[in-house]
């Protein structure tokens, strides 16, 4: 009992000592860096942090491409209004592109939220965790859709401007069309995956650096759940794409 009491007293004293050292001997540290008022004011012009910059620029580039595609779809619809067999396909392309634009705008809003440094840091790390485990993988899937949309639309334009109609003349045409579209999606997906890897690693490292086991477990659970979700979304996209191509073939 006396031993425990002495131990407690010892711990309390040492604890007080650490606080005392901190309070009394920090004088040299407190004024190590000392900016003038003018220097403080000039820092307002300093550039933005790079942490979310790579993702933000990827989203903005993706948005520009999608807006261009949307305009191209509208122009094609006006030009080829009489081609009844393409109305369904064009509508699907329009919906995919418009949906991607809405998702990108939502992502930009999330990024702005992540840059709120006045938030408490548990909340910021949690937002980062969500962004990393949920939104980045979905962004990759959604963003990669621009390439197949571009290929299909390009094909429509080519056929319409050259033949004033769109139809497959042989089975080979269908195979080439489907293959090119799928390869386009795959290349775009893989390229996107690598371009976002740096950000993913940086963010993951940041979460790990807290050594907060709950946060890491939460991240892993979300990642596993999201992997299933990604597989489902990919299958839906694949099924939709194949259905669209079959419908085109039958039209």
């Amino acid at each position, binding site marked *: 009992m006396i031993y425990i009491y002495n131990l407690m007293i010892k*711990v309390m004293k*040492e*604890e007080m000592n*650490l*606080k005392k*050292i*901190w*309070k009394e*001997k*920090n004088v*040299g*540290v*407190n*004024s*190590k*860096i*000392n*900016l003038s*008022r003018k220097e*403080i*004011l000039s*820092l*307002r012009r*300093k550039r933005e*942090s790079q*942490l979310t910059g790579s993702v933000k620029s990827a989203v903005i580039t993706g948005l520009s491409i999608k807006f261009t595609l949307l305009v191209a779809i509208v122009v094609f619809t006006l030009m080829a209004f009489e081609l009844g067999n393409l109305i369904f396909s064009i509508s699907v392309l329009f919906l995919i592109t418009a949906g991607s634009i809405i998702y990108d705008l939502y992502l930009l809003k999330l990024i702005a939220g992540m840059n*709120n*440094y*006045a*938030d*408490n*840091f*548990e*909340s*910021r*790390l949690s937002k980062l965790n969500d962004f990393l485990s949920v939104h980045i993988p979905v962004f990759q899937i959604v963003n990669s859709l621009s390439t197949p949309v571009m290929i299909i639309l390009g094909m429509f334009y080519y056929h319409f401007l050259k033949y004033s109609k769109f139809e497959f003349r042989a089975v080979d045409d269908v195979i080439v069309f489907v293959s090119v579209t799928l390869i386009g999606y795959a290349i775009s997906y893989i390229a996107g995956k690598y371009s976002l890897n740096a950000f993913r690693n*940086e963010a993951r490292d*940041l979460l790990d*650096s*807290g*050594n*907060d086991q709950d946060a890491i477990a939460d991240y892993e659970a979300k990642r596993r759940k999201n992997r299933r979700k990604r597989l489902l979304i990919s299958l839906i996209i694949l099924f939709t794409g194949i259905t669209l191509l079959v419908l085109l073939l039958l039209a």
Partner: protein
Amino acid sequence: MDEIVEKIYSNQDILNRICFSFFNEKADREDLFQEIVYRVLKAYGDFNHKSSFSTWLYRIALNTAITYRKKKRHVFLGDENQSFIADKSGDYDMDEDIALLYRAISKLNRVERAIILLYLDEYSYREIAEITGYSSSNISVKIHRIKKKLHDLYIQFND
């Protein structure tokens, strides 16, 4: 704008302590210091005066320090062979006790460092909970654990 400049000017001691706890290299500390000041200037428009300025400043500064990454990654990880007193930049004239304490702090992970800084600067558990976003009971447990770890490290370095 003059008001915030004046407030930052008179609270630079807090920023110095945070920078010293997170980075060893002088250049890295200066970069972090500037990044924090920039973040504070940028966020000041949203400061609602519900908490004190120093609490709000601490929150932004720690957020920045935790998430701030250097390209060269000179993150101070408390290398056994690296002493605060023998820093390469040669800008130390620190008391040995405080150098040891900073060295012990540098062995903690970034979130632990943030919490112990607030504790050493005598913020209440409620205020620390508010700044970090953890519950008060969670903070109490964390602080107990970090204090023990810090104390052990300090004794170890002091021997």
